[in-house]
């Protein structure tokens, strides 16, 4: 059997202790195959970002296992991270550096010192050419979002996680971003997407998992989930109400 791109086994995450303990993930099992365009949907607080952060190694799971391309995110963290690119939800940036510097550093962290051709291609593809030598502080929110996408792709990871990448992004960028991500998916990259724009998931993703209170309450192909519903959003509302 081929190694899955992402594998979660009985994944649990609890924050805090005693009476104030919060269960963010309550035993998630999930397998995402190589080359899939997969959506992880759920209301706020469902555990989507916690799940992503566990995969990214930013959060340690309380129990269970998480693997990226077969590498355990805790035990084989260096190998797991080499295979993963994450676009975080928050607009984080280093105020000391320009766009190009930020991309070169990110490339260097991944052990790629001579990566300017790909960095230039990313800058051009994401419409950052005019801003390449601009300090990150001076960029608009949309531009910062583009840089976050470029940073996640700078090492050409086989698995790409996009945590609400189009939140607060204008229509033009949204369209160009999805066209680019679709190209990457067609080239073989596995995409894991979380979004509150369900029409995006409907158009782009072949499979969907719906998360509520740290549990997967629906997991199927987009077509199967939508069967009998006008849209994925309608299916989502019904499933969430029943869960």
């Amino acid at each position, binding site marked *: 059997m081929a190694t899955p791109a992402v594998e979660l086994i009985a994944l649990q995450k609890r924050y805090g202790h005693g009476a104030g303990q919060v269960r963010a993930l309550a035993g998630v099992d999930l397998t995402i195959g190589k080359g899939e365009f997969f959506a992880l949907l759920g209301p706020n607080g469902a555990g989507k970002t916690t799940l992503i952060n566990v995969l990214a*190694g*930013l959060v340690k799971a309380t129990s269970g296992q998480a693997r990226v391309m077969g590498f355990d995110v805790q035990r084989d963290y260096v190998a797991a991270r*080499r295979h993963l690119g994450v676009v975080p939800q*928050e607009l984080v940036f280093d105020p000391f550096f320009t766009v190009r510097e930020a991309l070169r550093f990110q490339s260097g962290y*991944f*052990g790629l*010192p001579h990566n300017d051709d790909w960095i230039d291609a990313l800058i051009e593809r994401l419409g950052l050419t005019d801003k390449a030598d601009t300090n990150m502080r001076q960029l608009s929110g949309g531009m910062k979002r583009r840089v976050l996408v470029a940073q996640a792709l700078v090492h050409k990871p086989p698995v790409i996680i996009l945590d609400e990448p189009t939140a607060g992004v204008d229509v033009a960028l949204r369209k160009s971003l999805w066209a680019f991500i679709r190209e990457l998916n067609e080239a073989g990259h596995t995409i894991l997407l979380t979004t509150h724009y369900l029409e995006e998931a409907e158009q782009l993703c072949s499979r969907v998992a719906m998360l509520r209170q740290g549990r997967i309450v629906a997991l199927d192909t987009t077509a199967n989930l939508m069967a009998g519903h006008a849209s994925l959003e309608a299916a989502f509302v019904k499933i969430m109400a029943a869960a």
Partner: protein
Amino acid sequence: MNYIGLWTLFYKEVLRFWKVLLQTVAAPILTSLLYLMVFAQALSAHVQVYPGVGYTAFLIPGLAMMAILQNAFANGSSSLIQSKITGNIAFILLAPISHLEFFLAYLLAAVVRGVLVGLGVLLVGIWATDMGVAHPFWVLAWALIASVAFAAMGIIAGLWADKFDHLSGIQNFVILPLTFLSGVFYSIHSLSPFWQVVSQINPVFYMIDGFRYGFFGQGDVNPWWGLAVALPFTAALCFITMQMIVRGYKLRN
């Protein structure tokens, strides 16, 4: 070992302070020179510390070492707290950089800044007083040991602190007293027996005294004895720092 990742993070950390050179290098050099000017003017005619060594010359290694310690501490601590608060630490945490590489990159960048500031103070001081260097090995050894110790302490503080106020507390209530009460401005032989004992508990005293020995060939204690205190102290700080990084203390929930 991801040498390119290590080099990149180290270079990024050096570039970070280099971009604000006035604040991170020039300002502490100026502060040290102001101390030198004021204390030398006020006391040089009244204080004789070591035979054949003027008070101004005596002050210079102490001030240079104080600058090394404070700036090595400041670099790692300020960089980490800023990255944690703004969230851009995620870029490093998402990368295939091992715990050791993370530790070495932050540590070495802080050492570079500490030594650079110390060197600035020394160059001006040597030019102004025409003092020599009796034992260059000891000068170099103590500059490195002290900057590594305080760089590690800076990383510990940067990891522990949740806000700038925490960091400021450590700087004002720990680092400043440790460095000021360590013989920068005086020989401990001029203190009462009680304060001599207190001074000898402070590991920074040995760093300053050993560094000074490198210039004048004389100090308050034997530099080898100082080394026996400072090396375990530095190793312990490095060990604690590595443990915090391996456990993801306040980095990975």
